[in-house]
């Protein structure tokens, strides 16, 4: 968003002094101690900026409140890009309301870390049970949830045998006017996916897709809804968890994991440097990485967990059986502008 450019220099300047302190101490994994619980209870509140699905985050917050009755959770749900913009605005002028933040756009954490907006904290669970590549070595954030940008089809309108199996299949003339997709200029998920596809499959795929008369939506959350309602029988991209949600609700939709590989979307989570409730924030982050919260993410949120202990529900293709395109937040961040511009030129909006 535009505040990156406006506020960023201010933020960077503001935080430069604090940066030294941050890298001096690579954190040790912390366990939940009675002292931490006490301190958190005294703060009494934690504010969570999140971009995950609303009912899921509301349920997680309620389950935390049930476990720690002395702390209430204020959930601030908005799109990842909007949260990013808001943090930029707020830190730019010294408003500190956010304690814990997560984003479905992994590039955000790279930029936040670069600007030293994050307080290092490493829950013991993360070190023990999560693959090491999914956390920041300096402990400022870890990958809290994952989802995929999948293709999909409407089972009422398309027979399973006719459904496309790959990105290349979408270019067949029979799918002209039948495809819905989201836009990388408005959605971090689609930006990540578009970068991965352009890198591994190439821009000509998008150039040909643009000639297929696609229904262009903004948010990555939109296409699953359009697919379920039968507005278009085929979905070229969109978040997997909402598609699975639609399916659970009885809508005639089925995900497609393209044979070239499915883009994986990693969602980080961390604590803000000037969190007004730092101890409650730590306790909450601990909880969010615990098996309780992670199981909710998988069962209710229909997302993927990187915690080795979590079981995936029956009927869903497990993450380990899906060929994914390599995730690379740093490269995505570096190429973001170019990807958005080129996409807009190709699709005309």
């Amino acid at each position: 968003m535009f505040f990156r450019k406006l506020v960023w220099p201010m933020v960077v300047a503001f935080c430069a002094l604090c940066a030294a302190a941050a890298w001096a101490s690579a954190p040790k994994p912390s366990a939940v101690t009675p002292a931490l619980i006490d301190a958190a209870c005294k703060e009494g509140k934690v504010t969570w900026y999140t971009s995950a699905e609303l009912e899921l985050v509301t349920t997680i917050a309620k389950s935390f409140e049930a476990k720690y009755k002395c702390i209430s959770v204020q959930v601030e749900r908005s799109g990842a890009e909007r949260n990013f913009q808001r943090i930029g605005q707020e830190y730019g002028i010294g408003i500190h309301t956010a304690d814990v933040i997560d984003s479905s756009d992994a590039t955000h954490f790279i930029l936040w870390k670069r600007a030293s907006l994050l307080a290092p904290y490493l829950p013991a669970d993360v070190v023990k049970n999560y693959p090491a590549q999914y956390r920041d070595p300096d402990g400022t954030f870890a990958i809290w949830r994952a989802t995929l940008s999948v293709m999909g089809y409407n089972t009422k309108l398309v027979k399973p045998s006719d459904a496309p199996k790959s990105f290349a299949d979408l270019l067949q003339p029979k799918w002209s006017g039948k495809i819905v997709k989201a836009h990388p200029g408005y959605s971090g998920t689609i930006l990540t996916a578009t970068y991965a596809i352009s890198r591994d499959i190439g821009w000509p795929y998008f150039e040909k897709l643009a000639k297929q008369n696609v229904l262009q939506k903004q948010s990555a959350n939109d296409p699953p809804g359009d697919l379920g309602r039968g507005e278009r029988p085929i979905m070229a991209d969109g978040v997997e968890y909402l598609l699975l949600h639609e399916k659970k609700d009885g809508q005639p939709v089925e995900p497609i994991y393209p044979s070239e590989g499915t883009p994986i979307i990693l969602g980080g989570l961390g604590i803000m440097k000037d969190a007004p409730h730092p101890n409650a924030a730590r306790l909450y982050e601990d909880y969010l990485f615990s098996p309780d919260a992670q199981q909710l993410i998988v069962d209710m949120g229909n997302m993927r967990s990187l915690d080795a202990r979590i079981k995936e529900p029956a009927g869903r293709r497990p993450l380990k059986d899906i060929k994914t395109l390599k995730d690379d937040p740093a490269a995505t961040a570096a190429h973001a502008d170019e990807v958005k511009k080129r996409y807009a030129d190709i699709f005309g909006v």
Partner: protein
Amino acid sequence: MTRKLDLSTPLFAAIAVILSVLVVLPIGYLVQRAFTSDAGAASLVNIIRLVTEPAMVKPFLVTFLIAVCVAAACCIVAAPLGWLVARTNMPGRRIVRTLVMASFVTPPFLGAVAWEMLAAPNSGLLNEWFRALFRLGPSAVLFNIYSLPGVIFVIACYTFPYVFVLVANALDRIPGDLEDASAMFGAGTFATVRRITLPLVMPAIIAGVLVAFLQAMTLFGSPAILAMPAGFHTMTTKIWSLLEYPPQLGLAAAASLPLLIITIALMRLQRWMLGRRTYAIVGSRLGAPRLVQLGPWKWPALVLCLAVLCNPIFLPYGVLFKTAFTHTVGESLTFSTFTLHNVGFVFLDFSQTQAALRNTFILCLMAATLGTLLALLVGYVTAREAVFGHRVLCFLATAPIAIPGLVLGVGLFLAYARPPFTLYGTLWILLLAYITIELPSAFQQFSAAFKGVHPELEEAARILGATRLYALFSITAPLLRSAVIAAWCFIFIDTMRELSAAIILVTANTIVLSVVIYDLNETNALGAIAVLGLTMMTLTFVVVSVANRLRFGIPAAGRS
């Protein structure tokens, strides 16, 4: 008679200053950014890009076309509707008036979401019914909301109330005497309408068309939802995309300049059209308006009104109501599918509901009250030419209508996010934004109303020793009672549904309802949107009907 202290001159001067700060600050920022390159030097690079790049020129032409069509459609539909409701014996006039208010209450983006459910080419309910009725194949499409006519239609649905309210209020104020006189001289009903009524409401119609045109030009919500899937940008969605990362603020500012210039041109045109006539019709003794007897035509007239109201009200709210009480959009509402799940979620589980309701309510009340007061004073000052530079004030009070809310939001953020005015993160910055945004339509309404009130009564009061301010509040304002109440309701409602500036200015603690609904749309939570949308409408409706009680409570209010 003792000479009273006349506070009017310092007050009018203060109004001029407040208005300048409110309007000049963001506009000044805008103009400065438009003529500055990204490197910070004075430059014409943004303007050159604006007029040479097809990607910029095309949205501009599309927006112009949309605005012209919307203004024309609104005028054709709303002016006759206003006449039927205000001046005929059509049955159900109150209900029709109320329903038009309901379409005004509806946030345009909520209407757009509802129309997506109704008229998306494949999944839209209307298209499904059409196919089922005529047993057509899946490729048959009756309506395609993702198209230029679709966008024009949805914008017009929620813009025509502007014209309607202005026209109906003006008609309320026209005394029956003139029409009676016309009838006595043997003119038929329609000759009277054409020769007497129409010219008298012309200022209101022109003001309404102007407001409709400018609203359509600067609207963000509906095009954001409908235009992009249709494969084109309007000026506002283009500006929104320019504000996405990497931000091109200079170009975005430049893109709003043509809107500003068109506004100035239209205002000049309006003055030129009305300039040589006088419209002072509210004198000292007046007869109540006489209703035109429609005879056998009164029922067809009602059917016509209800048919028009299907589009902004019955169909969209039907679909929203159904969605509020079912699990998915596709299933129909029956005893077995009925659920309170969405209602429970919104009011019990969703942590933002309470804060958003409280903030929105406070802001709407304050913006409506302060905005009406400001608009009344500015309207008076400019209509009576009470201070030096009243023409500039007139321009300042109308200019914000041409600034897209998004851009105004950016301007306000930059103006009030740092000392000495650190208002960001408080409700004050939202209040400032709302008052600035709402000022033009309230001001337009008051200037049209002041044109209809002859200064003779004020002059009489002043000859008897009243100060100008006292005369305004004791003589003129009561005469304009219906205009005051209408302006207050206007602002209350429009603040409730304002999205584009709020989206940039809200924080966790200052969240408002419209932004919550827009956020919900991102998660496809259509059930929750429906519940909140219906709540929002109920809330507004209660407030507006209480406000209108004030008008109907006193018989022949506003007339001596």
